[in-house]
C-alpha cells in the first residue's frame, strides 16, 4: 500500500463517496475548476461535472444554506469553507438551522450535510488563515464535530460523516495536509471509521495526553521523547469532539492518574475546558495531579510574523515541558 497524505485521504474519500452515491455533491469557493485552494477537490469536477462539483459565489451563508436546503431534499452535500476562519458568516445556518432540523420538527425533517473546513496554523497564515474554531461548533447539540489526525482516519471518518444522517462539521488541519511525517498507508477501497470514538495511539502509564489535529502529532512526538526520560505517556487521539468518547478518556485517566490536554486554539474558553471539566468531575478520585491544559495564547488570532507565530503555538518542546512538570507533580 502506498503512503498517503491527509490531503490525499480526504480527496480519496470524496471520490469514493461520489461514485458510491449520486446524491453526494460538493460545493464551495474554487472547489471546481481550481480544485480547491489546497487542491483537495482536484480532479473531482473532471469526473463528476460542474453540477456535482460546484463553484459557488463568495457567500458562505449561501454555501451553508444551499447545502442545508439540498440536504433536506435528500441530497448529501459536502460544503467546503475555504478556511475555517471564513465559516463565521455561516454560523446562523449551521447552528440554528442544520443542527436543529431534526429536533425542531420532532424527527420529521433531517439534514444530512457535511461542512468541511481547513483549520489551524503554523503555516504563516496570519490572524485570519490560522484559526481553530472547533469549540464554537462542538458546543451545539445537534451537530457532530470531527477533527481527525491521521490519513487513515481522515478517509474513514469523512466517509462516515457523509453517510451520517445528521450534520457534521469536519475540520481538516491544513498544516498536516501534505506533511510527509504524517503520511500513512491507507487502503484504496471502502472502509469506515465510526464517528464518536477516540483512539489510544500510544499506550502509557504515567500520564494521559488528549489532543487532535496537528497537536496530536506534536504530543506524540513529545511523548516519544519522554520515554528516554522514563516517563510513560499515553496519547489519546480524540478524533471526534462531539459526540465525545468519554469512556476512552476516563479509562485512560483512571489508569494514569494524570491528564493533560493540548490544543492549538487559544486556551480560555477553548475545547480543552470541556475535557478538563469532565475529567475533574468524573475521574476525581483517580487524579494524582491537577488537570493541565496547554494551548494557544489568548490573543485575537495567530500573528503572522514567524517569531510571533512560534511564540503563539504549543510545540513539542513546550508540550514536553508540560509533561515533565505534570509527571513530577
Amino acid at each position, binding site marked *: 500500500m502506498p503512503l498517503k497524505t491527509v490531503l490525499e485521504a480526504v480527496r480519496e474519500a470524496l471520490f469514493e463517496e461520489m461514485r458510491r452515491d449520486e446524491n453526494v455533491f460538493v460545493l464551495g469557493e474554487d472547489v471546481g475548476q481550481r480544485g480547491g485552494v489546497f487542491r483537495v477537490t482536484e480532479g473531482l469536477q473532471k469526473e463528476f461535472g460542474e453540477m456535482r462539483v460546484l463553484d459557488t459565489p463568495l457567500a458562505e451563508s449561501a454555501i451553508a444554506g444551499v447545502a442545508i436546503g439540498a440536504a433536506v431534499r435528500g441530497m448529501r452535500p459536502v460544503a467546503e469553507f475555504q478556511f475555517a476562519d471564513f465559516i463565521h458568516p455561516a454560523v446562523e445556518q449551521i447552528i440554528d*438551522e442544520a443542527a436543529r432540523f431534526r429536533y425542531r420538527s420532532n424527527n420529521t425533517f433531517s439534514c444530512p450535510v457535511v461542512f468541511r473546513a481547513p483549520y489551524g496554523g503554523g503555516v504563516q497564515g496570519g490572524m485570519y488563515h490560522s484559526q481553530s474554531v472547533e469549540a464554537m461548533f462542538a458546543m451545539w447539540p445537534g451537530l457532530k464535530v470531527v477533527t481527525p489526525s491521521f490519513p487513515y482516519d481522515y478517509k474513514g471518518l469523512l466517509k462516515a460523516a457523509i453517510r451520517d444522517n445528521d450534520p457534521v462539521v469536519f475540520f481538516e488541519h491544513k498544516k498536516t495536509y501534505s506533511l510527509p511525517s504524517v503520511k500513512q498507508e491507507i487502503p484504496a477501497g471502502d472502509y469506515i471509521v465510526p464517528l464518536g470514538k477516540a483512539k489510544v495511539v500510544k499506550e502509557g502509564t504515567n500520564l494521559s495526553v488528549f489532543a487532535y489535529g496537528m497537536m496530536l502529532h506534536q504530543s506524540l512526538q513529545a511523548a516519544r521523547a519522554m520515554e528516554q526520560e522514563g516517563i510513560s505517556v499515553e496519547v489519546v487521539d480524540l478524533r471526534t469532539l462531539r459526540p465525545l468518547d468519554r469512556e476512552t478518556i476516563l479509562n485512560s485517566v483512571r489508569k494514569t492518574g494524570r491528564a493533560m490536554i493540548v490544543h492549538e486554539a487559544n486556551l480560555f474558553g477553548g475545547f480543552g475546558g470541556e475535557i478538563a471539566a469532565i475529567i475533574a468531575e468524573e475521574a476525581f478520585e483517580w487524579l494524582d495531579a491537577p488537570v493541565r491544559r496547554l494551548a494557544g495564547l489568548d490573543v485575537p488570532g495567530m500573528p503572522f510574523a514567524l517569531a510571533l507565530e512560534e511564540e503563539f503555538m504549543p510545540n513539542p518542546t513546550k508540550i514536553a515541558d508540560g509533561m515533565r512538570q505534570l509527571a513530577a507533580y
Partner: protein
Amino acid sequence: MRSTNETTAKDRKETLPQPAAATQPAVSKWQELGISKNDMLEMYYQLVLARTLDERIWLLNRQGKTAFVISCAGQEATQVGFAKALKPGYDVVWPYYRSLALALSMGMTPTEVMLHQLSKAEDPSSGGRQMPAHFGLARLNMVSVSSPVATQLTQATGSGYASKLKGDDKVTYTFVGDGGTSKGDFHEALNFAAIHSLPVVFVVENNGYAISVPISKQMHIANIADRATAYGMPGVVVDGNDLLEVYRVACDATDRARRGDGPTLVEAKTYRYRPHSSSDDDRAYRTKEEVEEWRLKDPIIGFERYLEEHGLITKEGEQAVRNRAKQAVEEAQRYAEAAPNPSPDTIMRYVYAEEGQN
C-alpha cells in the same frame, strides 16, 4: 385540495388564454384563469377558514390557553393564491411564521394547526417543541419553519438546486416578509438562484412593517420587486389582497420555474391587521386610521364581493361557508385541547437520528 391543484396546474398552460385575451370582456377573469366554480368556492373557504382559525387562536391567547400568537390576518389572499398555483406534496414549500393560510390551503388541517398552537404531543410540526406558527409538515413537502428571519431563502435555493441535480420538475416556493429582504440572505439566495436558473419562486409578503419599522426605514426604493434586476431575474409586484391577481402571478412564476426558465421574485403588497404578535402593541408605531384604511381592502371581503358580483355565491352561501369554517375550527380546538401534552421523558429524543433511522 391537492387533486384540484394538480389538475389546475396541469391544465393551466392549455386553458390559459394569452395576456392579450385579458381585455376581452365576455370572459370573466376567473374563467380566463381557468378556475372552476368549485375551486373559487374552495378558495373562499380557505380564506374564511384561515381568518376564523386565526381569530379563535387570539381568543385562546386572551383566555390564557396559549402563550403566543402570530397571525396572517390580512395576508390570506396572497397565501391562498400561491397555494392554489402549486402542487402540495409534490412541489416544495419553505414557508415562514405568517404562513397559516398557506399551510391550510396546502392541506394542513385545522386540527393539525391547533395541536401545534397548543403545543401538544401530537403536534405534527414540532411535537410542541417550537413556538406556535412554526409550521412544517413532511407529507406536504412543507419544510419546518424556524424563527431566524430569512434563513429559509438560501435553503429554498438549495432545494431548487436539488431539483436540478435530480432532474425533477418540482418547483420550490419560499415566503418571507419585507423585513427579511434587508438581510444578507436575501441577496445571497436570489443571486445564487439566478446564476443557476433554479426553479424557485421567492415570495415577499410586504405588509409594510418589520415589527415597528416601516418600509421607509428599511429601504430607499419603492418596490422590493425591483431588486430582481440586481440578480437578472424577473420581479413582479402584485396587489396581495387581490386573490385572482396573485394566482395569475403565481401561475406565471410557477410555469417559468417548471419550464426551467429560472426563478422569479414576487412582491405581494399587503398588510397585517394584528399587532406583530401577541407580545406586540402596534399602537406605538401605526395609527388606527391606517389600520382602518387597510381593513377596507380586506382580501376576504374583496373576494366575497367578487364572488357575489359574478353570481358564484349568495349571502346564504357565504354564511354556510362561515359555518363550515367555524365548525372545523371548533372540532380542531376540541380535539387539540383534549390531546395530551408532550411528556418530559421525550425531551432528549431526536437530537440525532436514532438507531437505524434516517
